[in-house]
Structures are given as C-alpha cells and as structure tokens.
C-alpha cells in the first residue's frame, strides 16, 4: 500500500520549553509527514537541538502536545520515542568505542540466538554488512569503532538509525563530517527512504542541501518558529534574513576604535593538531576583534593554538612582534590571557576567595621572595576590586557566591594583575544572564580603552556585530572571510559561516 503522503506522522503543537533565564522553545508547532524531508534551520542557539530533544524524549516540553498519527502521545524517554518509530542520528556520536560495528549498530537490540542469553553474532554481522553496503561503506563489520575515522563513525551512526526501520528519522547535521562522495551516497539513501514513506527531519547549516533535499523548511529563531516555507517559494537570501535579526540588547553599544595601536597578535598560516589550518589573524591594541562561525567551525581551536594549549603543527603565532611558542605558561608570561568558555571548570577556583583568585596568576611577580605578604595581597586585590567594580562585600568572599558577571570580572582581574595585554575571550557571556552581559561588554570595552587587545569568540551574532570593531568568520577549520566594521552584519557573518556568498 503506498504511504499516505499528506498524513502527518508526528505533530508537535505549541511546544514550549523553559530553562532558568532562557526560553529554549516558545510555542513551536512542527509537522512531520510521511515521505517528506523537513528541513530545520536556525543559527546557533535558535532552538533546533531543544526541539529534537523533545522529539526523542530527552526533554519534556513544559506545554504543548505531541500527536502520533492524530493520537495524543507522551514521549517521556528515548525508549518511548523508539516505540513510536522515531530514530535520531546524533551529531555527538552515540557509539561505544570498543564494540565492533555490528554490535554498535544493534546496541540495545541485539539479535537473540536459540541459546538463551546468547547473542546471534552471525546474524548481526550479516545485517550490518547489508546496511554498510547500502551506505557504500567498505569496512569489515568486525572492526572496533574506535579504529574508524570521523566520517566512517558518522556512517555507522547513520546505519544504526536506518536499522531501526524508523518511520521518523531525525538527522542532526549528518553531512558535517562526510566527504562529497559520502554525502551523495547518503542523499541517495535519503531519497529512497522518502519513497518508502519515511518522514525525515534534517538539520543542516548548508543552504545548498536545504534546497537539494528539502520538501519543507522551518526556520527557528530565539526558540520561536519564524517561518515555514517550501523551497520553491524562497531563496537562500530570504532564509538567511529569517534566521538573523534576533532580539538585541543595545545597552552595550560602544564607541568603535578609530585608530588601532600596535600589532598585538598575528598568526601566519596557523594550523594545529585539532584540525584548523591556514589561519591568518591580526589583532591590534585598542581593538576588539570578533571570531565568529558556527559551533564546530574551529574557533575555540584557534584560541587554544594561539595560547599554546594545543600543539601547533604549521605556521606561527607572533605576540607584540615576537614569535610565541611554548605552552600556556609561556603565553601568560608574554602577556596573553585566555578566558575559556567553561569558566567554572577552567577559569576560577570557585571555592577560593576573590582575593586568592585575583592574585593566583601574579604570585611570583608580587612576592618575588616567595613569602606571602597579607598586607600586599589585600592592597592589590582591593585595588583590582575597585578598578573593575567587582560587586563583592569583601576580598575574602568565596567566588562561588558571586554572580556570573562578577566571576568573569574576577577572571579578567586575575590576568590584569599578571600584566596581560592580549585577552582572548571564548564565549564570554555563556551562562551569564541578560543584565550582566552589558557589564561584561563594558569591561571588555574598558580593557581595550586601556591599551589591551581583545580577540572575542562568540556564537551570538548580535554580540559580534554590536561589540566588535571587525571580525573574522570561520568555517571548517579555516578563516572563511573577514568583515570590516562597515561590512559587519549578522547576515554577512551567516553567509560566510554557511558558505553562501
């Protein structure tokens, strides 16, 4: 019987999901039909992942309902989702490294043999081999997954989802790691599944794919559905316009740098062990330079390579005119500070006092005779607290009791007292509530005002556009383009980041 194309398999109605301080999904409705590829678009943090998580039961929606073939259902766990025929191809691999390909494909659904408790390995390998052949993957199914490259692991992940013979198949950027040839192969499989009446939800950042495969496009922004259209009725430009234009807090508008100072940071053809290559970046004192791009484009990797946290395999880094090599300690001695995204794990010692944290990186400088002088410690930390207007009742207050914004100030204060002049911020506003964001940007603005240079990584397009003097946009481990102040718009960044010039 031919599948009924028009019939919705799954229908999400008015789905909302709240997290403290964030509305991840706001009244989103989403219909998945048999034999249709439904494209899900949106920039970083637009709510795509949250929507997928609601679909496979990792999140419970706070309000709204889910209909399966018109009947109201609850998806309370991944097992529930699986029972309804929903399979997901995850971007972060859900593979077990020391099991073989067949065991991974059928994890949780092992074939039983006639001996009770015994797994039918032969049957599993036969089935797995068929699936790999379908995907054009010529690898022995007995190979342990940890021996495979990223692309092959992605294919195993796809085979795993296909093997569930799902009626709804969700793919989260399945081609991100695939070569052109493998991508074509996957598209062929997708078209065949479509013919068989499988409903496909497909998340992609490649606009070309959206038009090549999609039957319907839904665009999310700030957790809301901002458009639902057919590919024939729209253009790449219109999609980009729909994705950008997020609500902007303009309270941190700053005066841009008219006359940049000396060259603080220069990378020449930089490449690292973590997959970036050919990166050429310049940052001068007095400037805030943005490093934009989609998640996974290699921004953090650039920061880590500059700082010496990852091994540089190619090119060089120059700081204030002199080459920089050696590990993170060499970098801090040369006045480079990296303020990582994961502040609580890498940036501050939460259970120590504000004073301890502020002095941590400059102990050797302040106390050359290796003898801690409490009076000096107190004086220096009080001075920093005043300078940065850190809201703390006392220098001895534990950092964990401060707000996110003030914690961030403590991190900056630490590197300032160590004499740093080049600051690299990785997602400085991650996990900081809206009110404190302006404070962070004022702080960064003050830093460059005092002659420091700042390289700022951010996934928030409005932040880059409103804060930075200019920006580099990364894609696939390389710098895809540079935007001057005049060229710096959200759409401009997104076009470069998504490879649509």
């Amino acid at each position, binding site marked *: 019987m031919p599948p009924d194309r028009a019939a919705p398999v799954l229908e999400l109605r008015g789905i909302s999901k709240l997290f403290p301080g964030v509305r991840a999904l706001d009244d989103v409705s989403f219909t998945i039909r048999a034999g249709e590829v439904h494209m899900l678009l949106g920039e970083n943090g637009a709510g795509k992942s949250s929507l997928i998580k609601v679909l496979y039961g990792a999140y419970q929606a706070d309000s709204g309902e889910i209909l399966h073939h018109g009947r109201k259902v609850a998806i309370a*766990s991944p*097992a529930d989702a*699986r029972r309804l025929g929903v399979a997901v191809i995850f971007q972060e691999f*859900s593979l*077990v*490294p*020391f099991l073989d390909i067949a*065991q991974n494909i059928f*994890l*949780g659904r092992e074939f039983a043999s006639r001996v009770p408790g015994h797994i039918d390995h032969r049957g599993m390998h036969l089935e797995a081999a068929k699936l790999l052949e379908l995907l054009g993957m010529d690898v022995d199914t007995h190979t342990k997954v940890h021996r495979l490259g990223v692309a092959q692991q992605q294919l195993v992940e796809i085979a795993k989802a296909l093997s569930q013979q799902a009626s709804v198949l969700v793919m989260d950027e399945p081609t991100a790691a695939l070569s052109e040839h493998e991508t074509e192969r996957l598209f062929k499989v997708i078209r065949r599944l479509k013919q068989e009446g499988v409903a496909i939800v497909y998340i992609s950042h490649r606009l070309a794919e959206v038009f090549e495969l999609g039957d319907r496009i839904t665009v999310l922004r700030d957790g809301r559905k901002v458009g639902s259209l057919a590919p024939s009725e729209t253009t790449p430009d219109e999609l980009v316009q729909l994705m950008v234009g997020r609500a902007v807090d303009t309270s941190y508008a700053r005066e841009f740098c008219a006359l940049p100072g000396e060259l603080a940071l220069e990378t020449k053809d930089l490449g690292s062990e973590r997959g970036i290559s050919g990166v050429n970046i310049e940052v001068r004192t007095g400037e805030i330079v943005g490093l934009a791009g989609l998640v996974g484009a290699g921004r953090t990797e650039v920061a880590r390579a500059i700082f010496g946290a990852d091994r540089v395999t190619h090119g060089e880094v120059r700081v204030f005119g002199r080459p920089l090599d050696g590990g993170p300690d060499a970098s801090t001695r040369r006045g480079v500070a990296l303020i990582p995204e994961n502040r609580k794990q890498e940036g501050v010692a939460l259970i120590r006092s504000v004073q301890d944290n502020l002095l941590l990186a400059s102990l050797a400088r302040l106390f050359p005779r290796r003898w801690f002088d409490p009076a000096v410690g107190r004086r220096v930390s009080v001075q920093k607290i005043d300078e940065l207007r850190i809201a703390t009742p006392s220098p001895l207050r534990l950092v964990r009791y401060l707000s996110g914004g003030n914690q961030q100030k403590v991190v900056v204060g630490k590197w300032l007292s160590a004499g740093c002049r080049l600051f690299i911020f990785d997602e400085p506003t991650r996990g900081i509530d809206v009110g404190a964001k302006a404070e962070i940007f004022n702080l960064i603005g003050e830093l460059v005002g005092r002659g420091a240079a700042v390289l700022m990584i951010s996934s928030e397009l409005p932040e880059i556009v409103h804060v930075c003097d200019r920006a580099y946009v990364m894609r696939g481990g390389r710098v895809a383009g540079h935007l001057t102040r005049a060229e710096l718009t959200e759409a401009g960044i997104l076009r470069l980041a998504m490879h649509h010039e």
Partner: protein
Amino acid sequence: MNETSALALRPHRLRAALAATPGVAYILLLMVVVFGATSKHFLSGANLLNLGMQSAILLMIALPMTLIIMSEGLDISLGAVLTLCSVVLALMLVRGNGLAVALAAALAVGFAFGLANGLLVSVVNMPPFVATLGTFGMAQGLALAVTDGQSVVGIGDFVQQFYEGGVFGIPVPIAFALGSYALSHWLLYHTRFGSYVFAIGGNREALVLAGVRVNLYHIGIYAFGGCMAGLAALLLTARMNSGHPTAAIGIEFDAIVAAAIGGTSFERGDGWLFGTVLGTFAVGVMRNGLNLLGVPSSLQVVSIGLLVIVALFVDGLKQRS
C-alpha cells in the same frame, strides 16, 4: 607447527603479531626464564601444579574485577567479601549444614554485597572507590565480628577431600578456574550483558539513548563479582580447611594488578579477558618464584608494585610507537 614458519617468512606479519602482544606476555615469559634458571624447583611439575592451584582463587576475583574496571568502576571490597563468605561457609559447615547449603549461604552473602555495591554505584551514583571502600569495611568488620577474630575450625574432612579431588583428572581448583574463565568469556563476548559492560565504560549515554535499562546491567556487573567471591570462598575455605577472618586480605589489590597489566583500561571501556589470565599468572609466578628464592613477603609486595609499573610502561611505549 607450520604456522610459526609462515610467520617467520613474513617479517611484517611477525612484527604486527609482536606489536599486538601485550607487555604482560613478554614479562611473564621473562619471569619464567629467570625463575627457571635460578630455582631448580620452579619448573618442576609439582610446582607448576601448585602455581595453578594458587592462582585459581586470584583468577576468580580478577575476572569479575576486569568487567568492573571496564565499566569504569572498581571494587576494593572483593577481598573482604571473599573472606566473609569463607567465614560464613565454614560456620555453616561447623553447625552441621551440608556443603550445598553452606555454599548457597556464601553465594547469598557475596551476591548481597555485590548488589549493594552495584546499587551504590549506579543508582546512588557514588564514586565506585568510595562505595566499595564502605562495603569493604563492613565485610571485613562482619568477618571479624562473627568469628571473634578466631579461625573457624572443625569443618570436617570432606571439604578438603573435595579440594584435593579432580574433575576428569583436572584438579578441582583448576577446574573451577577454567569454568570461571569460560563463564566470564561467554558473558563478556556472547551476551547482551557483556556488550553493555563495554558500553557502560565506553559511552553510557549511548545505552540510555538505546532505551536500555542501564542501572540493571550496571548492578549486574557488581553482583557478578559478589557471586564469584562466594564461589571462590569454597576454594579458599577448602585450601585452609578452616574459615579465617583475614584470609583473603589484599587479594583485591592483586586482582586489580592482574587486570591492569593484562591490558584493561580504567577509563575507556576497553579490556581483554585473556589478558587478565596472563596478568594473574604474572602475579602468581612473581609470588611463587620469589617464595622459592626465599624473598620475604613484604618485598614481594614491592615487586608486584614494580610489576604493574613495568607492564603499563611497556604498553605505553608500544602504543606510542
């Protein structure tokens, strides 16, 4: 046979085979050569048999320890649980129960402790080291409490006769060891349970997403350890013809050593069950050989510590090259 000559003809295959052999195999070989040369008793049939019988109990603890470590866990209570099981077994026999009833009691005690460990680690989400440190203290304390710190003697001759008997000509302890290995091998490589051991250590989230009741299997791993301790208690009690409240102290250390030098990884869900057998022999040969050479037991502990470091160092070198 022909296979060795075929290997010799293809040097690249020989090199690959050498690279694939874990460090522990070379160390074991080296020790056999050294002890064989320095002690004329070492390679005698009687001593080798003795070696096998001594290693049986350790192997029965090291096998489940391997599965536990593969699941990113640790069970330092196993030695104390084994001791408690042995004491319980002896007490039951002294009170006139049959061997089957006594063994069932020992197995039940082992299972209960394994269950407790599994619950604490998987459901309560305690670090395995801390959880099993707690149950270690309880098992050790109970063993001392129920015996008043004295050996439990007078369990009758038939247990010892059983120990000295054989199954199809194989001495009972060695038959137990072989059976335990076969069971563990089947569980790890041929059942869902085994696949999930790899998965719990390698990517627990993947199992959750696959809709598997992960806690159940996680508890099962520790429960398997407890049961093996209960079974090993039979051998321990028989060997000493009594129940002694400090009999198996520190065996968990040797078991962790055996798994570690056998190539079990502490953080990636990787392990090799036969490597644990080699590791067990390495520990056994070390102790046996040093005994024959008259080295005091305190220094034997030092040598076993050294053994771990050397074995892991060799593996580290090979991984880098």
